[in-house]
């Protein structure tokens, strides 16, 4: 077993989850110019809902995933209603703080109910590693990568071919023109927040078997945010590349520098990107404000 390829492959698995969180952020940002700091709590809610459905209600895994998607989508819609819509006329910074506040409320509401006791769920796939070429990987991690790839493919098809997907793209480009076409812009916002948040929830239920469930799971917002920045914050492919990059660099940094360095890696990546390439890998050049 060689170390570096091994670290890269497991980094890709973690990174694909960061990518999912990042895509959720990007979708909402593109539609509404707001970074949703409650996105981490969608992850937490997704994980807890997964735990409830699977461990407590003994529902089949796939049913649980569908319920998680619906539940975390609802979280997104609530955040939109509470933190975004009433503050439409406020500066973006105010709205971003409001999303942060709603996120804190959600997190602490969960803590109130289930305290800080960590929970776990077991995934459907085995955690016994198998050998592919020279690297070992668990079917669990393979399934995560496959699921994320599938979700991304579905998203691409959705935005390209469905009426709602096209309406979302149109609204992201010009809200005024979209409303002139008969598109209800508030409705599109609500659905975009739901979709972005559902992706976070999916990340939560996928990550739960790997890292366990606790109220601090929302901290995955940090690598997710960095992934989005690396990708330019408006690009889905950018968010995927960014997520994988952060995941891989975390792994490499954790082994070759020090294990406590792992948590620092996303911030190092963030600062480096902002200094060297402020618009990210896939971002458009900044327009100068007149």
């Amino acid at each position, binding site marked *: 077993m060689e170390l570096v390829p091994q670290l890269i492959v497991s980094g890709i698995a973690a990174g694909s989850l960061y990518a999912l969180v990042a895509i959720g952020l990007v979708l909402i940002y593109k539609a509404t110019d707001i970074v949703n700091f409650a996105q981490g709590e969608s992850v937490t809610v997704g994980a807890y809902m997964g735990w409830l459905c699977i461990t407590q209600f003994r529902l089949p895994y796939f049913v649980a995933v569908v319920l998680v998607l619906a539940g975390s989508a609802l979280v997104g819609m609530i955040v939109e209603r509470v933190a975004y819509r009433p503050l439409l006329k406020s500066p973006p910074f105010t709205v971003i703080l409001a999303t942060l506040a709603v996120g804190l409320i959600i997190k602490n509401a969960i803590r109130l109910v289930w305290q800080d006791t960590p929970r776990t769920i077991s995934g459907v796939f085995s955690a016994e590693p198998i050998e592919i070429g020279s690297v070992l990987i668990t079917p669990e991690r393979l399934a995560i990568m496959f699921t994320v790839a599938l979700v991304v493919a579905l998203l691409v098809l959705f935005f390209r071919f469905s*009426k709602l997907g*096209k*309406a979302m*793209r*149109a609204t992201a*480009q*010009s809200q*005024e*023109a*979209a*409303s*002139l*076409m*008969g*598109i*209800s*812009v508030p409705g599109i916002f609500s659905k975009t927040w739901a979709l972005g948040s559902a992706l976070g929830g999916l990340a939560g239920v996928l990550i739960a078997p790997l890292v366990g469930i606790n109220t601090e799971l929302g901290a995955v917002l940090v690598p997710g945010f960095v992934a989005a920045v690396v990708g330019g914050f408006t690009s889905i492919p950018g968010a995927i590349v960014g997520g994988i990059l952060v995941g891989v660099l975390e792994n490499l940094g954790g082994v070759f520098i020090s294990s406590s360095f792992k948590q620092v890696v996303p911030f190092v990546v963030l600062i480096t990107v902002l200094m060297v390439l402020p618009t990210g890998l896939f971002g458009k050049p900044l327009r100068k404000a007149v």
Partner: protein
Amino acid sequence: MKLDGVETFYGAVKALKGVSFTVPDGSIVALLGGNGAGKTTTLRSISGLTTARKGTIEFNGTRIEKSPPERVVGLGISLVPQGRLLFAELTVAENLELGAYLRHDSAEIKRDIEKAYEQFPILRQKRAQEAGTLSGGQQQMVAIARSLMSRPKLLMLDEPSLGLAPMIVAEIFETIRKIRDDGVSILLVEQNANMALSIANFGYVLESGKVVMSGNVAQLLSDPRVQQAYLGQEAGPAAPQAVRH
């Protein structure tokens, strides 16, 4: 369509100070006036992009002064906004499809897209291209075709000639005339008063948020005030026809 005493504000600034006029069915009505006269605001108030604070707007017996844009489109009023506001990163075909967003008759929508390509053959060639990559004239064609996709009864155009070469402008105006002949009423806002009055049936002149003149085209063309202010001619019946520079 009928406006009665419409007042619209931008913040504390009163942009429309009681605008009243009608657009008779099947006619082209030109809305003339200088910069800041309130022409664009009038169209925005009708389409619901800016809500009128006072007055009434009635369309086919329905009051629409408080309706949001998506409802106004549904009732059959479509706006081709100033600057076109195309979905620049979407293809020409996608722009047209979105114009039919409220419709559910997909076979008819396909036929209407086909019709748009017949009307503007260049758009057929460019249909898979991002709308933002087209020339100004082509973008104006997309904007008009996109608005027609909702099958409006009233089409409003805000400065369709702005920034376009004279030959293209003539083509656009010919298209507008054809659209009227198909039975769609037209409300046309133009800086280019000569051009607008050449195809219009009626005209209204706005000045600082008020209708100051109205009449059919012959009346407006022979009015010395209109000639002087908007047609660039000397006042008086004996005025030379040449355009002054």
